[in-house]
């Protein structure tokens, strides 16, 4: 690029930067949205249940049944309440005051002492199926704990032929925040890169200032670069801010290399920007650009990226669709870099996919913009 080209580019970058700084709505997306999302997700969203309200019905209290109830009362996962009768507990379940019932019938202890099988009735509210499964798992855990203690007290071994020893890698405590917060960075960068860029550039088309730019000696490449660079800086700023919050505020470990994180984020940022520009060129209207950006980039980044829901369990057609979502690759990179470390096969495959998308969208934007400017 010659001197004149550099000057033109510098002028363009200056204009775009001023535009960002002076518009309250772009500032709000670039700074308020990341803070809001990080704090909401970091503190508000958790799949880890604690203090689950359960009802305990003991129809004939005695030492054996009290010991069993005590297991639940001392567990940090439950917040138990005693009920006099199963009907009262069922009513509480209907009224959503409790999420589950543990029911010891009146003959529980007599069956236990006479060597018969003594069943415990468990009812869980299944509406939130994921929560119900977790509750079920905790109840089973408390039951096994009690069983082993009971067997020990009787001086026998617990008859459990096979027991499972689990070791969880990367996130030993299975805390959902550890995987939600890294994934969130992909969503924040999508917001800045695609939604904000699409709407702001569409406004230029709407207001006709794009035509004014056309009349200047700016070339297509210079104009695109001039548009991209300020938003790139803004997006990377949002990224660094989010990483800092993730590491220092939410105690998410960063086990991989920081520079690899920067490199892959830069790659993803460029893809998101290219998509944002493409949406604005095609829609040329803020309202449509905003809608398309939400539907085509924000929502998929949320639902189809593996950020929250497991991709392998989606229907085949939708799994196919996820391959078209750049956030899918970036979420995999983020979760790996933060929690697992520099796992090259995962990183290379996903960065390769991002690179292909970058080339594809850049060529598309270049062609579209060039044509619009000349045509």
């Amino acid at each position, binding site marked *: 690029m010659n001197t004149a080209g550099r000057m033109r580019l510098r002028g363009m970058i200056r204009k775009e930067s001023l535009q960002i700084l002076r518009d309250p709505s772009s500032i*709000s997306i670039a700074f308020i949205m990341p803070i809001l999302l990080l704090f909401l997700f970091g503190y*508000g969203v*958790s*799949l880890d249940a604690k203090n689950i309200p359960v009802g305990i019905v003991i129809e004939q209290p005695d030492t054996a049944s009290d010991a069993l109830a005590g297991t639940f009362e001392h567990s940090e996962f439950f917040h138990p309440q005693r009920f006099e009768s199963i009907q009262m507990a069922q009513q509480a379940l209907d009224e959503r005051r409790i999420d589950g019932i543990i029911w010891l019938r009146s003959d529980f202890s007599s069956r236990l002492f006479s*060597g018969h099988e003594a069943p415990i009735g468990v009812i869980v509210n*299944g509406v939130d*199926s994921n929560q119900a499964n977790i509750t079920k798992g905790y109840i089973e855990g408390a039951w096994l704990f009690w069983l082993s203690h009971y067997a020990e007290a009787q001086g026998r071994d617990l008859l459990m032929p096979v027991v499972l020893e689990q070791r*969880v*890698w990367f996130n030993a405590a299975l805390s*959902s925040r550890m995987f939600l917060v890294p994934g969130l960075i992909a969503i924040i960068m999508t917001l800045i890169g695609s939604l904000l860029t699409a709407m702001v550039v569409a406004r230029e088309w709407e207001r006709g200032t794009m035509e004014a730019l056309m009349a200047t000696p700016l070339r297509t490449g210079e104009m695109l670069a001039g548009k991209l660079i300020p938003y790139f800086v803004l997006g990377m700023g949002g990224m660094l801010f989010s990483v800092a919050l993730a590491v220092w505020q939410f105690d998410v470990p960063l086990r991989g290399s920081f520079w690899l994180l920067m490199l892959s984020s830069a790659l993803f940022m460029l893809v998101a920007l290219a998509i944002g520009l493409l949406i604005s060129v095609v829609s040329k209207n803020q309202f449509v650009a905003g809608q398309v950006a939400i539907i085509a980039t924000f929502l998929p980044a949320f639902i189809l990226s593996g950020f929250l829901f497991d991709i392998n369990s989606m229907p085949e057609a939708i799994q196919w669709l996820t391959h078209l979502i750049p956030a899918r690759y970036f979420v995999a990179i983020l979760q790996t870099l933060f929690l697992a470390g520099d796992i090259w096969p995962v990183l290379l495959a996903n960065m390769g996919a991002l690179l292909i998308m970058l080339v594809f969208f850049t060529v598309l934007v270049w062609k579209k913009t060039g044509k619009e400017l000349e045509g």
Partner: protein
Amino acid sequence: MNLDHIIALVIKEFLAVLRDKRSRFVLIAPPVVQLLVFSFAATYDLNYVPIALYNEDRGGAAQELVARIEGSPVFEVIAHIDHDAEVAALINNRDALMVLHIGQNFSAGLQRGDSVSLQVILDGRNSNTAMVAMNYLRTILLDYNHAWLADRGQSGPQVSLHTRAWFNENLQSRWFIVPGIMGLLILVVALLVTALSVAREREAGTFDQLLVTPLRPMEILIGKAIPGIIIGILEATIILVLMLLLFDIPLRGDLGALYLGIVLFLLSAVGVGLMISSIAVTQQQAILGAFLFLVPAVILSGFSTPIANMPEVVQWLTYLDPLRYFLVVVRGVMLEGDGYGLLIHQFWPMAVIGIVSLAMAGWLFRRRMY
């Protein structure tokens, strides 16, 4: 207040929304795309768990266990490995979600009547997936234990759990998510229609014209609110039909209670929309304002993660979120078979939010006018 004035404005609003290609697009495309994609993609259930087996035992007991895992519809055995060193690569590269290690003495130990242990290594990068997969494996082992004991004429542990799930008997997460999507979608539509209606007129300059008509501010407010409510009710009905026919979700409770909930919820959504509308000067600000309300409203509503898991301070915030109440209503009526009585504590907060936000919008309108 003059009814004719309001009716005239309502008709005008409908024409404005329906004749504009872009507004029509907003009403039709996002809800359809979201309903279909969300409903099929948004599930916590796992139906494909890639597992690698590290089986060092050639005995029959180990083979039976392997057969049980291979026969499970959920687990897919992607590799059989022979060395410890292979475990790391499989988990690190995300080829396997878990590796099950059956030690050399597994069958022999079982035959002797010892308690033997199995090691399982899980990829915890997605903690929820790991926990759900672990629970599936536990269920298989529990069955295996029972069968092993029964074959040898021994009974299992004397005390057993008999678990039943109420309301969603097979614990399908689709039954939980899809009714939530109804709340989400009608909130988006009602909010956008009302948030944009005033902003659009401001931008086009027709709002001033509206002010010099004989319409009173209150009439303008009501005229602007009604289309959002009617469109919301229509969309809720379409989604309800799709839920019943396409997704086989039961309708166990009182349909009247559901519609009362829909109307109250829309009232609060429209109130918030008009409030945004009366503050925003341009359409872009209106869209951004709607977005800034929507994202926290969805996250704090219990749509995808339980409110009970949130910290206490955040839980207080959720009381301001109308979606929180509506989700209880729609899930309560569809799955739990609730009627008016059990839902009364969901109805009145929505009504309060609706009335307060409409009053605020009315006040902002008047303040902006004079």
